[in-house]
Structures are given as C-alpha cells and as structure tokens.
C-alpha cells in the first residue's frame, strides 16, 4: 500500500491512535463538555496537509471504529467525519495558507457542522439533546487547533511524511 514516494504512514496511524485514546480517556464532567473530537482534528489536519493520502474513505473507516467505541449507531460518526473531511478537502488550498487563528475559526465551523449532524441523527432515533452543551466540544476543538496543527506539522516535517 505504501509506495516508495509515500512514506511515514505509521506516523499518520500513530496520530490517529493517540487521538482515539484521547477521545476515550475518562475525564471529569466539566472537562468532558469541552473535550474536542481529537479524531476529527487529526483528520482535518491530515486531509489538509496530505489530501492524496487521507481522504473520505479513511475518515469513514475511522468514524465507524469511533462509533463502535462510543456505543453510538454504526455509521453516525462515520457520516459526520466523512462530511468534515469532505469540507476540509474542498477548502484545503485556501485554509492551508491562513494564519493559525483564521484556521481555528474554519475548524470551529467544521466541528459545529459535525456536532449538528451527530445530534440530528441522535434526535431522529429518540435522543433529542437536552441542553445546548452539545456544541461546546467544537469550541474546545477551536482552542486546541493551533497546538494540534503545530505538533502534527513538526511531526510531518521531522519524519518527512509525504
């Protein structure tokens, strides 16, 4: 699968594994409300930096695994992450050159759309959201985006992931 000019696939996989662990790490309730979807952040970064390697298919598979881990409907996060990656792929040439704070705002918008999709499906199957707290993880994502971006960029450069 990994062609000669495509290297460092294990870095991408490792970053997703870490994101997955951060997603399921138990946190106190106040912190949990702001916990970003780390998998979505990693997907946005990789699809923006290496659109030829990480795309909608990868996002869908990762979403399916995330669904199994969270106990949600199989396909729920898969759909949401596929849509987020689609938006990131469509705009990556523009967002890539934004300053960090503008990138963070775009990421906020992607994540808000993701939360709305997930909770729209939840509402359809009989779990209407009870309070507006369901949008706060997107704010957490915006706050953490600059760090995610800088860390993953440095990793990508150091290990020459291409």
């Amino acid at each position, binding site marked *: 699968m990994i062609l000669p000019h495509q290297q460092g696939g294990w870095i991408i996989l490792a970053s997703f594994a870490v994101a997955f662990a951060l997603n399921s790490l138990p946190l106190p309730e106040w912190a949990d409300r702001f916990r970003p979807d780390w998998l979505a952040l990693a997907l946005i970064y990789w699809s923006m930096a290496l659109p030829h390697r990480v795309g909608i298919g990868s996002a869908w598979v990762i979403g399916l695994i995330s669904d*199994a881990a969270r106990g949600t409907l199989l396909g729920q996060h898969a*759909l949401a992450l596929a849509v987020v990656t689609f938006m990131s792929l469509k705009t990556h040439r523009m967002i890539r050159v934004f300053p960090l704070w503008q990138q963070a705002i775009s990421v906020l918008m992607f994540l808000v759309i993701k939360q709305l999709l997930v909770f729209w499906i939840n509402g359809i199957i009989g779990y209407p959201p009870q309070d507006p707290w369901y949008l706060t993880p997107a704010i957490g994502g915006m706050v953490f985006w600059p760090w995610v971006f800088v860390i993953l960029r440095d990793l990508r450069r150091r290990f020459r992931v291409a």
Partner: protein
Amino acid sequence: MKIKQNESKPLFAAETAVNLRLFVFVLLSIVAMTMDHRYQHLDAVRNTLATLIFPVQYAIQLPFEAAQRLSRSLASHATLLEENERLRQKQVFINAQIQKLAALEAENRRLRMLLESSMNIKERVLIAELMKVDFDPYRHRILLNKGTFHGVHEGQPLLDQQGIIGQIIHASTFTATAILITDPNHALPVQVNRNGLRTLAVGTGNFQELVLPHIPNNDDIQVGDLLVTSGLGGRFPRGYPVATVTRVEFDPGRPFARITAQPVTELDRKREMLLIVGEPTSNHPSLAADVGIP
C-alpha cells in the same frame, strides 16, 4: 499555458472524485445506520470492531488501575485493621439477617407450593467491572469488562448490592455494553412494594430520575413508596428494588398522574456490578421480551 493545463486537469478530476466519494460514503453511512437501528445484521461488525479496539481501551484504563493498586498498597496497617474489623462486624450482622431470610424463603416456597406456582429465588451471579472508558455522554450506556467469553449474553439484567442498574444490550467477545434504566429509551416493569400496583418505569436521561407515566389519578401511590421489579416482561428477576417515589402530582385535567422516582442506586458512581446468569424466572412467558431495547 500547456504546463498549466497539465496541472489543472488531474486536479479537476480529483475534485469530481471527491464529490462522488462523499456521495458513496454518505449513502453507505445511511444504509449502515438504518440496518443497525432497525435490524440486528450489523452485530457481527460491531463485535469485530469492539474486539479490535479492546486493547486500546484496556491500555487507557491501565494507569488508573495502577494508581488504584498503588494507593491500596500504600494504605497503612492500622487503616487495614480498622477496615477489616468493620467488615467483620458487618458480616456478622448480614449473616444474622440471612438466617432469618432462609427461614422466610423456606416458608415462602411452601406457601407457593400450596398455590401451585413456582418461583426460583436464588440466582447465580457474575461480577463485572465498569471499564473506565468514556462513552457518548448523551446516552446512558456503560462498558463492562466481561463479554460472551465469560458467559455474558444480550438481555442479561445488571444490578449491584442496592438495586437494578440496567441490562446488557450488546455483548462482544471481551466487553459488553449495558443500557441503564435511566436511558430515555429504556422502560422497566415495576410494582409498588407496598400494595403490588404494577406499572412501567421509564428513563428520562437524568441519572436521578425515572418517570411512571401510566398511573391513573385515582391509584394508590405515595411519595416514599419503594418500587421493585415485577418480573413481567421476562427480562428482570422479580423483587429487586429499583427506585423510590419522590413526587406525586394528581392533576384532574390530565388522564394520568405525574409521578417521578429516584433510583435506589447511584447509577453514575458504580464500579463493580453483578450480572445474573441463567434464564430469568417469569410466570408470564407470553409477555417475555416486550420491553427494554427500542
């Protein structure tokens, strides 16, 4: 100009491919969600994925377990002795109560034999521990560290030393998912312990609250009444405490009273739980499996 064309053509092709791919995967998601929600076809997929991520989930909770073990091994000798003494006293007390219970059980069985109805009072149990993994916070589901490998199966009731917690809705090889009685999609057949009035207790999405939506205004129910499982429905064994009634409002303008109850056990603070092994006893097989999972 020529170079530009060469560059832009594959880019354009990639754009349409992205659109098409999104369409395909959205369609796939919708099919998967419908199948998962309406039918049971995807249980094998879920089982495989759950087994696949089990090592990661296990790794996540290792540091928490290590910290717990460390704090236990650092506990002082005096504290341990004190705790030991307290537990011994408690055991003497409980043993005394059990003696009384044995006599009552025997008497109950004799009386039931007279009435020609059978009920199995003793059930075998399996101890399961909560895995320290965060689930979707908007559903009342928990992950347990026992799976089909240990004899867990779907529909198994889950309880602790105080009362009913929930039931298993999905069992994979090494883990099992349980739905709590407070999940908005869960209903549980109960009866009032004082007078045997039967009804359903429905979850609200709040760990401290259940509602009893089907009690007419003229029924006999009071604040403080203990609700126990009625055994109807065939999922839960009979006679386990579920909740105490906290609020009763009779509104003549409505057909049913507004009644809420608080679960007897702290659903969000439990770590060790019991799973009842074997077929739950029921005198009403025709009512089996009519409640629980939507």
